[in-house]
């Protein structure tokens, strides 16, 4: 089943064209990886999918579970099942991670016409999912990301992912800033969240995450477009050849 379909997407920021005609289809249950040099528009794509204000969608369409995604408010998209693990997670003053997740989970449940979880069930769920991603329970009572180390913030993003059970999880460089052990834990967490009912779009610069995650497809993004798509071997090839390989005339070959 087709979960996400992006057709000829063009996005600008402040008069500058960033995404220049991007096509991508993700079926339910698939794991897609996007690689590509700095500044080619990977985070821009992730943000546009999540509905971050400030981007001008100039052309194209995005269909998510048969609905026009571009017409939805960011919170609606989240409730529909889009999750973004941020490249730079923000700190939220005065709100504990637990309280934040409780609000989020229950908002999403409300949207799906489910009863809110009671305090006991919620606590159980939270403990279980925190353990799944190796997040110590003490981080649940701290304010969201406040004073967390870079790696802890990334891990917390995966914890949120585990709590919210989205249809499409977008991971924007979740691996950067993680040490080897943390990387394994996060990757294992993600792997255990893989299901035929859930798809992943993983943005990364490094092969090592893909070693653990084994994507179904790897795409190379360059200058606002997907210029190359293949299987996991493509990532290996990229790692050995570097992006110069693309600049030297391989553009557009698929």
């Amino acid at each position: 089943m087709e979960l996400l379909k992006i057709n000829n997407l063009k996005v600008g920021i402040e008069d500058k064209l960033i995404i220049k005609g991007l096509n991508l289809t993700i079926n339910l249950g698939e794991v897609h990886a996007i690689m590509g040099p700095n500044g080619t528009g990977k985070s821009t794509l992730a943000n546009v999918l999540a509905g971050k204000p400030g981007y001008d969608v100039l052309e194209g369409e995005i269909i998510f579970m048969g609905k026009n995604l571009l017409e939805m408010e960011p919170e609606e998209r989240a409730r529909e099942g889009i999750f973004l693990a941020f490249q730079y997670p923000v700190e939220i003053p005065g709100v504990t991670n637990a309280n934040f997740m409780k609000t989020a989970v229950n908002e999403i449940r409300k949207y799906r016409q489910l009863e809110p979880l009671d305090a006991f069930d919620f606590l159980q769920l939270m403990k279980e999912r925190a353990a799944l991603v190796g997040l110590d329970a003490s981080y649940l009572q701290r304010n969201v990301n406040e004073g967390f180390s870079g790696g802890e913030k990334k891990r917390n993003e995966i914890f949120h992912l585990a709590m919210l059970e989205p249809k499409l999880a977008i991971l924007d460089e979740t691996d950067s800033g993680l040490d080897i052990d943390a990387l394994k834990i996060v990757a294992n967490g993600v792997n255990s969240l893989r299901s035929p009912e859930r798809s992943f779009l993983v943005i990364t610069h490094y092969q090592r995450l893909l070693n653990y995650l084994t994507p179904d497809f790897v795409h190379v993004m360059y200058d606002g477009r997907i210029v190359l798509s293949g299987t996991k071997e493509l990532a290996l090839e990229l790692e050995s050849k570097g992006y110069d390989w693309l600049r030297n005339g391989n553009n557009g070959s698929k």
Partner: protein
Amino acid sequence: MPNDELLKEITEQEYKYGFVSPIEQEFAPKGLNEDIIRFIWEKKKEPPFMLEWRLKAFRYWKSMQEPHWAKVEYTPIDYQDIYYYAAPKKLKEKPKSLDEVDPEILRTFEKLGIPLREQEILAGVAVDAVLDSVSVATTFKEKLEELGIIFCSINEAIRNHPDLVQKYLGSVVPYTDNFFAALNSAVFSDGSFVYVPKGVRCPMELSTYFRINASETGQFERTLIIADEGSYVSYLEGCTAPIRDENQLHAAVVELIALKDAEIKYSTVQNWYPGDKEGRGGIYNFVTKRGICLGENSKISWTQVETGSAITWKYPSCILKGDNSVGEFYSIAITNNYQQADTGTKMIHLGKNTRSRIVSKGIAASRSNNSYRGLVQISKKAVGARNYSQCDSLLIGDKCGAHTFPYIEVNNSNSIVEHEATTSKISDEILFYCNQRGISKEDAIGLIVNGFSREVLNQLPMEFAVEAQKLLSVSLEGSVG
């Protein structure tokens, strides 16, 4: 002008507009002079010492200048253009029913869970009860009387307990204290009085709901609370004003006196009308609140949630005179649209080993300005005194301002004064992050504001805390696009 002439003039003036009703006659004309003060004094049937006191205050007030040191701006107040004794709004100008009231206002009332009848009152719908001269609820009066607790309107207290009033009225806030205190002393016409006798623990929260109803009526409540040795009382003050497009002055004075081993807890939730989105209308809230810990081991604790008023100028303070006495100030001040708040506290340490704690949370949204102004003064004799102050500001958007003015004066070397301050901002990035987790902007702000305010909300009695929490989110409505 003799009183009967004055009254005649008023009645005739009213008659021109086509009304005669007993309520309509109960007011003095606009403006302030000694005759008006005599009129109020006579209306209130007060003993002679009060007239003398009021006139002294008035004469002193005339010699004073309106203060302008606070970080607030407003068009000058014409003190001769105010009614100093309640003049109910003319019935024909009032909406006849809730159907005629702005739906936006009704929506707000609904969110606050204000009952229908209350809504009518707040919206200024013509109802036949007299509202401006609020008198204190009498439900529990008898039960309190059994314990010897006096809880009545200040007017009743002046008539029935003149000795207590004469001893304590103006003893904490003398009329010479400041411009608005002098004005209040001259013209106050309502307020509450509490006396808790020795060793008595007041078994219930005492509460008053103040309202400003009539148009162009200055409100000058006067509250006096005396906790005798070893007693305890918790007092709640809720303030709401109906919506008017003109500004109204509110200059109250509250005095608290805690004798040896006594404790007074005073909580306020203030949501006077703040003015509209363009900054039109709203209450000018210039209030003097002060308590004295007169005896050893006494304690006074102020908790305030300030969400309303166009301008708030308010510094609930403690004079810690008795040795080992304790003063506390917990405050949340919220400003939105064009609201301005300059609020804080003074902790004056006079006795040995006195302690004070200040927790101030300022929240500014839209184009509002929110200032904390606090003084911690430790006198030479206050050996071993301690103060801890924490002032946190939260900004929503980037057109608002938060300012902190802590003044610290320490006059002996073995006292400890600690001050901490933080400023956080609810940025667009934070809001987007919350949105991305399925939480709407309004809920996100509510979540953050409640977290930010929790330490102060926890100080409020349970039912009050719930109301206050709702108020916080309602007053921040529309603060983001």
